[in-house]
């Protein structure tokens, strides 16, 4: 029973190649089941096939068939403990493009559930999910945002707490605006208005988020009705100044200016209850949080190594288990045959006592060797101990 991994990821393969071998969950599950004891993990950053007791070549062929070309020099292969360690790092988000991203843990779990793997793969994937969860709950690696748009949403949450029901005004309907809006919306905010120089573009984006389009001239009216303002126009000068901001507001107003040149007069940030972040501020915040992710990554690696050690111990213990089982079976066989010789000469009570006593003697006698063998299994001596036990008690001959 061997564990092997064949795959490619963002580390070694360009997106043009990765997209050809990427499968959806159903496709990955089907591929894994067609190979046998296998799990196929396919995300936008990687496609990896984990195999239990199968020839690696079947996975190579499957991936090359998907790619439509030879993958020599692109595929990586790992076996046994190295494969397990890699999976644990993947599940923990440590091998991801953005260290600590959390989506991968769900993808690992889904890949495992979509396949029909054997006990070894079952064990290693369950452990991967455990260590992934541990990394997420016991480190803060995934807490901090890794992009400007997610940092903007996280900063808004620092002001308002829960963003559910908070109203957002988007000024500019470009790609960056859309990303920021998506991040805010994913936290429950409502994109209430989209304002743009071209009203048609605003209408299209507003429809996507369930908001309403707005003329740039109507900004003053909308400002009184929103909590968060995101601007990303290509206007050559500021489109909002302190005088445009309603002065009698009870709730704070959070401005995110991701345009260059800036859309908002910096003096807005000095108004009472107003908070203003421009692109430089957001990038500085992201740089700081990525630093935090890297620092937390070191702790997460420690958890991964611990889990890999546990897997290694479990694998090693498997080597001595058959020897322990044979030894116990042999001892039980001797006990039963000796008891059979005396059972006609003894009363039922005496026989019951004798059975109990001999069983206890056997258990006590075998307890220490069993423990010692399991301990030895964790070290490199496990196989030697198992061989010694088989030799000393004649278990090999019996097996033959």
């Amino acid at each position, binding site marked *: 029973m061997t564990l092997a991994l064949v795959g490619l990821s963002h580390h070694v393969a360009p997106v043009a190649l990765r997209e050809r071998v990427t499968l959806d969950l159903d496709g990955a599950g089907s591929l894994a089941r067609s190979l046998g004891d296998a799990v196929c993990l396919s995300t936008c950053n990687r496609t990896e096939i984990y195999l239990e007791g199968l020839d690696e070549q079947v996975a190579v062929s499957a991936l090359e068939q998907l790619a439509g070309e030879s993958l020599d020099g692109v595929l990586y292969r790992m076996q046994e403990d190295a494969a397990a360690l890699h999976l644990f790092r993947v599940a923990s988000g440590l091998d991801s493009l953005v260290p600590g991203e959390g989506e991968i843990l769900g993808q690992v779990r889904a890949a495992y559930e979509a396949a029909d793997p054997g006990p070894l793969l079952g064990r290693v994937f369950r452990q991967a999910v455990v260590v992934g969860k541990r990394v997420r709950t016991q480190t803060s690696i995934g807490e901090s945002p890794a992009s400007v748009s997610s940092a903007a949403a996280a900063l808004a949450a620092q002001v308002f*707490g829960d963003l559910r029901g908070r109203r957002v005004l988007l000024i500019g309907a470009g790609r960056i605006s859309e990303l920021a809006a998506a991040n805010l919306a994913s936290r429950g905010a409502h994109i209430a208005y989209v304002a743009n120089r071209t009203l048609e573009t605003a209408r299209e984006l507003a429809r996507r988020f369930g908001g309403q389009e707005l003329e740039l001239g109507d900004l003053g009216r909308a400002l009184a009705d929103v909590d968060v303002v995101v601007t990303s126009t290509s206007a050559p000068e500021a489109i909002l100044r302190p005088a445009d901001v309603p002065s009698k507001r*009870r709730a704070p107003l959070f401005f995110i200016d991701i345009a260059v040149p800036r859309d908002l007069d910096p003096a807005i940030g000095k108004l*009472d209850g107003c908070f203003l972040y421009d692109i430089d501020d957001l990038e500085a915040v992201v740089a700081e949080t990525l630093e935090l992710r890297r620092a937390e990554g070191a702790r997460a690696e420690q958890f991964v190594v611990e889990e890999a050690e546990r897997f290694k111990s479990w694998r090693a213990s498997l080597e001595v288990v058959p020897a322990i089982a044979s030894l116990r079976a042999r001892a039980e066989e001797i006990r039963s045959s000796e008891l059979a010789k005396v059972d006609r000469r003894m009363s039922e009570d005496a026989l019951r006592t004798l059975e109990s006593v001999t069983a206890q003697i056997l258990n006590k006698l075998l307890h220490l060797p069993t423990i010692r063998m399991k301990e030895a299994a964790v070290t490199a001596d496990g196989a030697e101990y198992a061989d010694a036990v088989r030799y000393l008690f004649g278990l090999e001959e019996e097996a033959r």
Partner: protein
Amino acid sequence: MVEVLFWPALVAYGEAAFAYATVRTSRAATWGVRLGWLAQTALLAAQVIGADGDFPWSSWAGTLNLFVWFLVGTYLIWGCRPRFRLLGLTVMPLAFALFVVARIGGGTNSKASHYGDLFLVLHVGMLTAAFAGFTLAAGLAALYLWQEHRLKGRAHDILRMRLPPLASLEFLAWRTILVSLPLLTIGLAIGVVRQSRDGGTFDERELLTLVAWIVYGGFLAARPTGRRAACLALGGFVLVVVARVALAGSHFT
């Protein structure tokens, strides 16, 4: 017996005061708060038993002991969460220091009070609980001002060293005051009734407490938001501190 219970409470509060310093140890700090508060609860119960059911906290030191219990208890209910670590870093050293002062002043023994008056028990109990609430509200308001300052100043580590959101801090401070003001009102009313019964005179400490009551009452009535609310909560607290320090000098003698 009573004195024996003081030490575990003090050690647990001390542990919490230090453990809140880092994110990694803040969980241990929370346990320190919980265990310390339980130990202090046992201490208070033992004090009551030792005083034959009399009120053992009518001295300034005894009241301080009770104040610490209310303060930590309120913190346990409102703010004992990982994201309120910095509030814990403010509250727990204060609780630790005041607890030590209470012991030095003899407030943690079971000496019976020379008052056997139910009015006084309620008066002291209510006012102490209210003061504890106002202290916590002031801590929340201070945290609000600091967080607002960091957000306004666009601190780059704003997401690295996360404080509770402004909205949460504002709401919690308001809610703490909402609970504390009725206690202050009842405590004051009982004091006034008792004073008129015994023929006492209205002193400047009571006047100051009354002003604090007006400030907090105005706070609840107007429900200001943002920096204004935080400043008002802190202003009320300054009055409470002055009244409290002044009370220690005269009201108990």
